């Protein structure tokens, strides 16, 4: 009886504490739910009356803002293609071909990629891009992200491919398929869930990032949304709250959708391991 009551009080205590922590996480975001729909929004919290989409209209009419979203898309998709294709091929080779020292390669790459962070390597990245004449190009952003994200992507995918029985490809070859046929007909479709995960992770990483485009891009028409958003500040440096709020919401939407997609498809916990 005593322990039953104890359990009951523990549950209540935990619920209250959890709710408080939940509020702590929710509060900074609450403003964000209302402001985009409030044509008179300020930094303060207020319920819009009436709810209106005027802010979004203004954003849609702002060519520079829309261009930013487009650039984000171009850079993320570009990076994702390189990361997805490069990591799939490379991790398949690491898993299935008799290259000596495969796990050493994987570990060394992982080591490098965690040591060479964007903030530690911003100088040489800038200098290298500058040196090969790609400064202020979108391709530079794409390449830098591809290189930086590939080792982790390869690590995740290799783990995934290692867990797939070799008998899939073996049976295909016995049945008459060439190695390339076996790769495309059998291995690739089976690996696809792993590729989806890596691609989503890479997309979200590039889409949300600020530092790399910030140092590599100069001209405003190439800026992704994360940098373009800073154009919604007046000359004096005060933010144009209405536009910023609506734009932020638009800009966040793909991330939220992808998150929902992944948690629907692979279960909630999955996202846990893979955002770096």
């Amino acid at each position, binding site marked *: 009886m005593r322990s039953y009551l104890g*359990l009951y009080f*523990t*549950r209540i205590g935990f619920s209250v504490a*959890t*709710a408080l*922590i*939940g509020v702590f*996480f*929710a*509060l*900074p*975001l*609450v*403003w*964000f739910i209302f402001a985009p729909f409030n044509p008179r929004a*300020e*930094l*303060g*919290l207020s319920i819009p009356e009436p709810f209106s989409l005027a802010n979004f209209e203004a954003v849609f009419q702002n060519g520079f803002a829309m261009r930013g979203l487009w650039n984000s898309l171009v850079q993320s998709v570009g990076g994702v293609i390189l990361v997805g294709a*490069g990591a799939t*091929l*490379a991790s398949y*080779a690491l898993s299935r*071909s008799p290259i000596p020292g495969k796990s050493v390669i994987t*570990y060394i*790459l992982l*080591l*490098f990629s*965690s*040591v*060479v962070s*964007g*903030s*530690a*390597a*911003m*100088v*040489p*990245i*800038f*200098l*290298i891009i500058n040196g090969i004449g790609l400064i202020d190009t979108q391709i530079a952003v794409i*390449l830098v992200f*591809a*290189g930086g994200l*590939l080792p982790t992507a*390869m690590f995740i995918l290799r783990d995934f491919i290692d867990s797939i029985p070799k008998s899939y490809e073996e049976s295909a070859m016995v049945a008459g398929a060439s*190695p390339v046929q076996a*790769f495309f007909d059998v291995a690739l479709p089976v690996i696809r869930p792993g590729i989806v995960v890596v691609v989503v992770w890479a997309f979200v990483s590039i889409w*949300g990032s600020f530092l790399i485009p910030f*140092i590599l891009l100069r001209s405003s028409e190439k800026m992704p*949304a994360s940098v373009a958003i800073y154009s919604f500040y007046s000359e004096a440096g005060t*933010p144009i709250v209405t536009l910023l709020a609506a734009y*932020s919401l638009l*800009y*966040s939407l793909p991330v939220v959708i992808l998150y929902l997609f992944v948690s629907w498809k692979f279960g*909630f916990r999955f*996202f*846990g391991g893979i955002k*770096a």
Partner: protein
Amino acid sequence: MKSFSLLSRGTGAAFLAPAGLLIGAFVIAPFFWVIFVSFTNRSLLGRTAVDPDFVGLANYFSLFDAATFFTRGEFGSSLILTIQFVLLSAVVGQAALGMLLAWMLRSVPRSLKHLTETVAIGAWILPEVVIAFAWFAFLDYENGTLNMIMEALRFPRGDWLLSFPFWAIVVFNTWRGTAFSMMLFNSAFSSIPPSYFQAADVAGASSWQKFRDIGFPLIRGHVVTDLILITMWSFNVFTPFLLTSGGPSYRTEILPIYTYRIAFRDFDFGKGAAVGVVVMLINLIFALFYLWVMRRRAKGVAA
């Protein structure tokens, strides 16, 4: 003699090539390049932009110059600030709060669990500029949500970003990153067979006793993993820049922001590279430690 394999060595090498090239050019080359640049007085403009001089260890001497080491806005002070930031926001903030949440979420109603997880994960996945702006509004002196609440509770308003900038970014980083630790510990806890806890329940153990005697010891390996990862991430995080730009008067200038200022505001690439090298060395220590832990666990030694 040739022997059968699913992918021949040649094809394997060809499959590896694209990724290898990209990683070589944008991860491995920068690693060595930064070391090289740190021994020069390379700058963005002027003669040293094209034809830098070799200056030996001068950049490192200027970083570790005892006379100015602890001066605000100099390397030493930034390093100490960063260490404080990491200890408080990652180790104390993210890991402890994440652990607390993961443990409590096991015994709260499902709907509350889902709600809390959703907001925590929202804080974690939304783009950094959006988050920074949300916090900017949250902490605003005139109208911010926080001051609104303070007023409602009859506390004085605060100009948080001016009066407590360091604590602001500590809380900010805790808020931003706790979800990762929470999810990691969450999945670690659920990998423990429920019967372990049920046996303790039958024996009449309290929640704290179950945590201390069963839950925590069994996920110790995950705690180590989590600590290393979040420490590394917080050590390299640039996001506070979006909230405070390192100010006021360098009081939130953690190393990544300091590097940025030296290299891209003062255009002193040589010195910026030297900071990068130091940061990478510290990263290397963490990364090696991490790999060592992972390998040890892979070999089946209880971590």
